[in-house]
């Protein structure tokens, strides 16, 4: 049995006191524990931003990559060794600005990994610039008059890219978030969990109070996660009411299942000694 202690690292946490990342990370750890996973079989792949620091704070395997590239790196970890549970941690800037080009492709491949986006609607680590999920009008150092771009809607983007699992969580509701993570990890295929994560340092709009008044749980309103049209509709909600929970979920062939080479077991376990290429050479004679 994995314990909280097992997942702890000696690193001093430098997130701002009150940051939503604390709740998010705790939910991840709880999900790992409740799913009965060992820390050795989990690989956390993280981008660059405040979110990326998870890697220092959770005692699983970790790969801290570069800004925006969680998906390709995580995809390949899974291809190399499908026995591992792969979690991707990205920021909203990381995932939806510089890295958004990987999202539809990971989604359509349906690679089995859980992509957790710490969506604080702002650039945290680089001191508070406007992010792609920041809403029109958001003021920051880079948009002092208020942003005049519409925000990216990660949920509709993922839905329209055929993602087989799309959810939104809220870092202020750790228990609920834990359940979402558990479902996402258990889901065989690509799972996006966009987590509303208050940034107490920079985002003065999307605060705990802001969310407390607005979030509601999809499952409490009888939302059917197999209904794509309804998922789109709910994904579009952002106002007085903001849905959290699993928006959409479907069964589809998982990516690594399609590689003939993987049928013989994880690539990491296949021997590379004494490979014989004589058969391959024939066509060159």
């Amino acid at each position, binding site marked *: 049995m994995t314990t909280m202690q097992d997942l702890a690292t000696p690193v001093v946490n430098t997130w701002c006191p009150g940051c939503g990342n604390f709740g998010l990370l705790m939910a991840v750890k709880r999900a790992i524990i409740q799913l009965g996973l060992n820390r050795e079989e989990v690989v956390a792949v993280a981008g660059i931003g405040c979110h990326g620091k998870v890697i220092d704070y959770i005692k699983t395997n970790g790969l801290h990559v570069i800004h925006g*590239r969680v998906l390709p790196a995580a*995809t390949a970890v899974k291809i190399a060794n499908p026995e591992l549970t792969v979690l991707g941690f990205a920021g909203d800037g990381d995932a939806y600005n510089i890295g958004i080009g990987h999202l539809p492709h990971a989604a359509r491949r349906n690679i089995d990994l859980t992509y957790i986006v710490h969506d604080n609607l702002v650039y945290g680590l680089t001191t508070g610039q406007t992010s792609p999920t920041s809403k029109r009008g958001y003021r920051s150092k880079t948009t002092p008059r208020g942003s005049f771009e519409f925000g990216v809607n990660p949920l509709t983007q993922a839905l329209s890219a055929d993602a087989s699992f799309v959810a939104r969580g809220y870092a202020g509701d750790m228990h609920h978030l834990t359940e979402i993570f558990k479902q996402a990890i258990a889901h065989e295929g690509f799972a996006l969990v966009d987590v509303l994560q208050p940034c107490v340092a920079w985002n003065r709009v999307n605060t705990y109070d802001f969310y407390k008044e607005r979030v509601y749980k999809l499952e409490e309103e009888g939302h059917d996660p197999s209904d794509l049209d309804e998922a789109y509709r709910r994904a579009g909600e952002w106002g007085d009411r903001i849905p959290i929970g699993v928006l959409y979920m479907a069964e589809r062939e998982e990516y690594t299942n399609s590689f*003939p080479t993987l049928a013989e077991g994880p690539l990491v376990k296949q021997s590379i000694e004494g490979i014989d290429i004589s058969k391959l050479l024939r066509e060159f004679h």
Partner: protein
Amino acid sequence: MRITGLMDNSVSFLIGGEAGQGITRSGSLLGKALMRGGFHVFGANDYPSVIRGSHNFYVLRVSDEEIWSQGDSVDLLLALNKETILLHEDELTQGGGIVYDEQVELGEEELERDDIVLFPFPLTAAVEEMGGIAIMRNTVALGAALGLVGYDKEIMKGVIADTFAGRDRIIEMNRQAIYKGHAHAREPYDESYPCRLEPSDENPGRILPTGNDAVALGAISAGCKLYAAYPMTPASPVLHYLAAKDEEAGMAVVQTESEISAVNMVVGASYAGIRAMTATSGGGFCLMTEALGLAGMTETPLVLMVVQRPGPSTGLATYTSQGDLLFAIHASQGEFPRVIVAPGDVEECFYLTMEAFNLAERFQVQSLILTDKYLIESHKSTEPFDSERVAIDRGDLRIMEKWREEEEYRRYKFSGSGVSPRILPGTRGATVLANSNEHTDYGYTTSESEKTVAMVDKRFRKQEALREEVEGMDPVKTYGDADAQVTLVGWGSTKGPALEALKMLGREGVKARFVQVVYLEPFPSRAVGEALEGVGRRILVEANRTAQLGKLIKLHNGLAFEHVFLKYDGRPFNPGEIYAKAREALG
């Protein structure tokens, strides 16, 4: 085998026509047929970045001794259209011949040469007779060529049977086409072309790969388990080959959404514990530089082939160049050790790819294989590759069920050589943390001064160890006379034309040498210094505008070149032009 009737012991065929007519394919079939008869062959293609219509050609050179390059002139021109005749007429040797479709109207006044022989053939008619498709005119022309040089058509039949194995109708059609061409050449033109190619009785068993084939086979032999790439001329053939052979190769092959994705996949896969590789060119490499640094910082082994083509930017997408050497050495921010190895022929493509994987894993660094379009797309007959010549060496990678050491696993544990033990994520009792931030030995982020210095120094200890390793592994090859009057210095694909130039100089009694720098980073200055000592006039030969190897030699050995031969029109060197430069240098 024997070549007779020509001035020297080599024959050059040039097959030319429109893009989309399968010119390269035809050339390599002809090459194989001649190779099976014991000849050495070399074939190079030339085509613009166009799918249909524009002019393409393939030069196949054949000899009774090992051969490294297309020649300087053409003996027999197989012209699939009129344009080919007009474009290449001036390259023909005296007495050279042109095989072309008799339907082409070719007025005598259109030709400038009167010292050549015309062989109008019923290419189209023959195909129509058989009810074949237009592209089969190539095959008729191949048959004609073989007929003119008196070569055994059955060998070509065998090549066709093997190439199209299982597709009986195609085989039969092609056989007919060959026979028709061959017969027609014997009939009206018997002996009118002087050259004869006589096959040996026995096929010596050589193979005819391109550089791309060789690199792909090298990767397979090295146990590469993931190949991720984005289409990019001229590197794509590796992707195509491996995608077709993934099962036999035991490899997962992924066409990614971009080069950024490809290289990050390689990093992910390698972190997870498998050998992985990508390849690209120019702009694709630019996009990979960021993750190259990620691999550098995380000490993740990575193998990346950069196929050079003329830049800047899109440049000449289907031509050749050696313009990216210094970029490859310095690519990505910050400083970290890396390997740069530049094979010079198909054999080296194979063996050095295997070595590149070993070095990457042993030193936990990034191996860049620097090739170019000319090397990578040209065919050369060679001895079959022997994977056992390079033993797999994964360095300190500990594949174990459970971590049993007393102390906790540390990904970046300090060591004398700078290399730390790797384990697979998933090993019980341990977790593996790789970090693109500067980090402690455990992999945790740090920005402390002392810890930073310690980790930078650790990485640079690897560089020193790597430098010693490279100096010890034949990083510089020399060919020709030790007491040379003139020494050619080059790297990568210049090897072929340079060796041919040596032959030409040798025939005239000039003592000449070629120095090939194979490993370019860490730069083997000791070996370069030794190779360049007392070697007569030195001529630097590079396919770029700024003499990049020359700069490295200047920097590391303090040696400058008075004679520099740079070519940057995208075309490979011809032996003759190198020869001429050498002559010039000798005064």
